[in-house]
């Protein structure tokens, strides 16, 4: 009896040690690219075919932590990001009205806003919005806007989105006429969040940004109007 218990104990210990060494969480040998994530959201009930024109604001806004100097942020990929978005949205059939051509007689159906976060543990909350986008003169052509406005993100629960330790790009499609004056909010029609590790070569990062932006449109076929 004792001998058998001893044998069982040795076998059990051997197995437990083997299992523990191998760990209960296999990492599947993931590469940097495997951590890239593309999330897209859309407001239900929107007929995107009613939108024919867009304006892509020409600045990738940097969302920074309090006290962080935005000028320290890497801007090498901004032009590529804007160009990749422009190419995709044009492919979906939208006509562009350049930011400098917008006036009261030439208003786009939707405005595309691009922002990025590249800081650590940043909590991205809806309240940030007007502070970053209020500079766009185009808002003044629509009635009702003023200070204290924000974007409405029903898909971001609890007022806080994520904590980041990586780089993220946000693309937001706003219909400036779809507003909630009582709560002073602009309802977003579509949004994309791209998130990934930034510890990579410049060439790889550039390729991954392009692929992720393309993927955000590919997985949003309802945006297509042509």
């Amino acid at each position, binding site marked *: *009896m004792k001998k*058998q*218990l001893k*044998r*069982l104990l040795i*076998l*059990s210990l051997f*197995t437990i040690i083997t*299992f523990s060494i*191998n760990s*209960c*969480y*296999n*990492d*599947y040998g*993931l590469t940097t690219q*495997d*951590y*890239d*994530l*593309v*999330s*897209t*959201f*859309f*407001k*239900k009930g929107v007929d995107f075919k009613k939108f024919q024109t867009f304006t892509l604001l020409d600045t990738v806004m940097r969302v920074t932590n309090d006290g962080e100097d935005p000028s320290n942020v890497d801007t090498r990929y901004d032009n590529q990001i804007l160009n990749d978005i422009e190419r995709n949205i044009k492919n979906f059939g939208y006509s562009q009205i350049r930011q400098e051509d917008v006036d009261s007689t030439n208003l786009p159906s939707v405005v595309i806003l691009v922002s990025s976060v590249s800081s650590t543990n940043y909590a991205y909350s809806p309240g940030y919005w007007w502070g970053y986008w209020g500079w766009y003169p185009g808002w003044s052509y629509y009635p009702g806007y003023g200070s204290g406005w924000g974007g409405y993100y*029903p*898909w971001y629960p609890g007022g806080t989105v*994520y904590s980041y*330790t*990586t780089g993220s790009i946000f693309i937001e499609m706003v219909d400036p006429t779809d507003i909630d004056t009582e709560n002073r909010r602009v309802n977003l029609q579509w949004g994309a969040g791209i*998130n*990934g*590790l930034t510890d990579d070569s410049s060439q790889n990062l550039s390729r991954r940004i392009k692929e992720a932006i393309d*993927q955000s449109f590919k*997985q*949003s076929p309802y945006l297509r109007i042509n």
Partner: protein
Amino acid sequence: MKTKIIILSLCLFTVTAFSQEFISDFTWNFGFTADKLNEYIPNNSYTGFGIEGRRFFQKNISGGLSLGWNIFDQRIAEPITIDQEGFGGTVSGTQVRYVNAFPLLANLHYYVGKRKDFRIFLGGGVGVYYILQRLDLGVWQLESNNWHFGLAPEAGILVPLGDGQTHIIVTGRYNHAFSSGKSIGGNEDNSYSYWSLNFGFAFSSRM
């Protein structure tokens, strides 16, 4: 509370009752996901083990305790579709899904056949499952770890080798851990089910 009473009763009964034979066994456990667990991880598992002690308190009936560990995981590239009130969406990226299940069960078995011969047994276990559910999605990691009440009907065979004290043991068990807590997706139904096919060695002795 009910679980504790059942486990304690079985333990006390097995300790105090008159015993004829004691079997200890060690098994390598394969897992086959079922129901909701199969939706989360379709893959089968070949990593798992169990240890068990059984004491006979009647000629053909044993009671005992078993402890196990089943590991399920799968890398999945399929996008996640989100359908909520007011908005919908898609999340694409590499997911790695994990479930680690640790059953701790009090068992009761009925045997057909003599001690040193080939024996078939039927029975089952009742007890608790500690289940760790994890989803790695991009750089995010979501976890939900809960204790569950569970049941495990079981059937198996004991095949004696040479001396009649060592046996090959093969068992099939259906594990069902009742819902407890919330899944990582916030789902109220957080139950888990899986089949396990267990192979190993059993050591028998008279006490």
